[in-house]
């Protein structure tokens, strides 16, 4: 999952890196195919070299050492609002068929639970040119409609973002799960674009909370390369982030 997520970053891009899993995906991309990507962190850090140690949070001291820039939140988030950020990287508790994210009010075993909230996710999902989401694949996380839109995807379909006033050049690009990669059609709905090695299509579909469409040219996600696996082991030797 982390390797597939990292591949969404192209070399030279400005990448807005969300908390938790996106940090490791960015670190992987930076050390493999995208050495000239620049990472933006909402706490006020920008860096174009890889951090010299594993990060548990984006404010960990190694992320500041020899950084490109340290400043305030607005000075980094305004790059997002200017439309300069190529890709925003997020985790989420729930995503729906139109790529809307919920990290505010969840449901577990039929009970409403309070989740931590947006953080910068809503800002990133609203204003990045492409938004990529990483989360585990099950019916509680991939739902037909989120009960609460913390961070906007395509709303209820094509045209919704523009009608809400969101920038023309923005929106969800991919959902990377533990089973595959979902992308978005012209109508704003997600479809299954690839399944990870060893995952059956039916497995992915039955673990999705809506009738998930499948690409005509469905692919198998390429295995992580030797290089990718080596880097993951190097940067997360104790498997804090990469349990699988």
């Amino acid at each position, binding site marked *: 999952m982390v390797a597939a997520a990292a591949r969404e970053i192209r070399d030279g891009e400005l990448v807005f890196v969300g*908390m*938790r899993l996106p940090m490791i995906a960015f670190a992987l991309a930076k050390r493999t195919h995208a050495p000239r990507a620049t990472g933006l*962190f*909402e*706490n*006020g*850090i920008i860096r174009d070299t890889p951090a010299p140690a594993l990060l*548990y*949070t*984006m*404010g*960990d*001291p190694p992320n*500041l*050492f*020899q950084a490109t820039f*340290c*400043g*305030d*939140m*607005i000075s980094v*988030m305004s790059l*997002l*609002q200017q439309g300069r950020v190529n890709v925003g990287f997020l985790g989420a508790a729930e995503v729906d068929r139109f790529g809307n994210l919920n990290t*505010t009010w969840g449901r577990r075993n039929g*009970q*409403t*639970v*309070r*989740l*931590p*909230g*947006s*953080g*910068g*996710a*809503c*800002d990133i999902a*609203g*204003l990045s040119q492409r938004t990529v989401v990483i989360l585990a694949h099950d019916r509680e996380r991939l739902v037909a409609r989120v009960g*609460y*839109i*913390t*961070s*906007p995807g395509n*709303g209820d379909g094509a045209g*919704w*973002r523009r009608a*809400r*006033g*969101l*920038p023309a050049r923005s929106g969800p690009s991919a959902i990377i799960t533990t089973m595959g990669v979902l992308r978005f059609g012209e109508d704003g709905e997600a479809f299954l674009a690839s399944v990870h090695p060893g995952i059956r299509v039916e497995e992915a579909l039955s673990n999705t909370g809506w009738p998930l469409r499948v690409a005509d040219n469905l692919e198998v996600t390429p295995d992580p390369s030797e290089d990718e696996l080596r880097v993951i082991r190097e940067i997360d030797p104790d498997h804090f982030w990469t349990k699988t």
Partner: protein
Amino acid sequence: MTGAAHSKLVSMQQAISEHVPSGSSVLMGAELEQMIPFSAGHEIIRQGRRDLTLVGPISDILFDQMIGAGCVSRVMAAWVGNASAGVGYCFRRAVERAIPNAIETVDYTNFTLAMALHAAALGVPFLPTYAALGSDLLKSNGNLCEFISPVNEDRLIAVRALQPDVAIVPVQRADAAGNSHLWGNLGVAIDGARASRKVIVVAEEIVAPEVIASDPNRTLIPGFLVAAVVHEPWGAHPSPVQGYYGRDHAFFAEYHEQSRNQEDFERWLERWVLKTPSRVEYIMQLGNARTADLRTREHAFTAPADFGF
């Protein structure tokens, strides 16, 4: 004739006692995962403050602790939880089951909370943004309202200015008048200090005024904004202070486990807050081995800049 200001140095106990009454709105965690004013929060808990409004973008576990201790009636934040471990259990108990008391949440995004403080720091009633368009946050947060731009036809959010009663801001070093050097990721600290009616600075080190004045570009909080200066080494533990100590990841993980239910949380609180009268005892309880391990060992000093003439 030198204009040297009087000293604002006080103990943490005095600072909280004088400047953070029950009912206050308090900005903490302005520097996000770095430099969270844990020792200030713990003193607020010990002094039994109630009915506070906590303001901060992401709070890591400090807000969770203060909510669990019953100090809080409202949270204005973008994210409340544990940055490395996930949810905050006290926050969940308070919102879902009113344990120990019900709290109101005013949900922001990081950027809109930053803009709310920036508006107050600039002295304007609101600032416009494209952020949060399309989000359900707009339905519940009355401080974010849609309007049409007066200079084009764009739809925008007006983020209402937010002026906390007091900002508690950890800094690396300050002089006795409150002129403060801070460095690293700044989050909303600068705007937060300027937006608030009062500022309490919590400094790892107190230094001579000439040290601060040697680098006026790093004096991000000038003394005339500051009401009190507290000298409190290790005041931000378990969060990091760049150049002083690292993040105590294990402490966050332990708290996560020890706050799953209210009884365990109360034991945690007893041990780390209620029965440790000040930060000195807290650091002793932490132990030399742990502080030695966290202390910055590989120094990396900034290249000097010349302010000569």
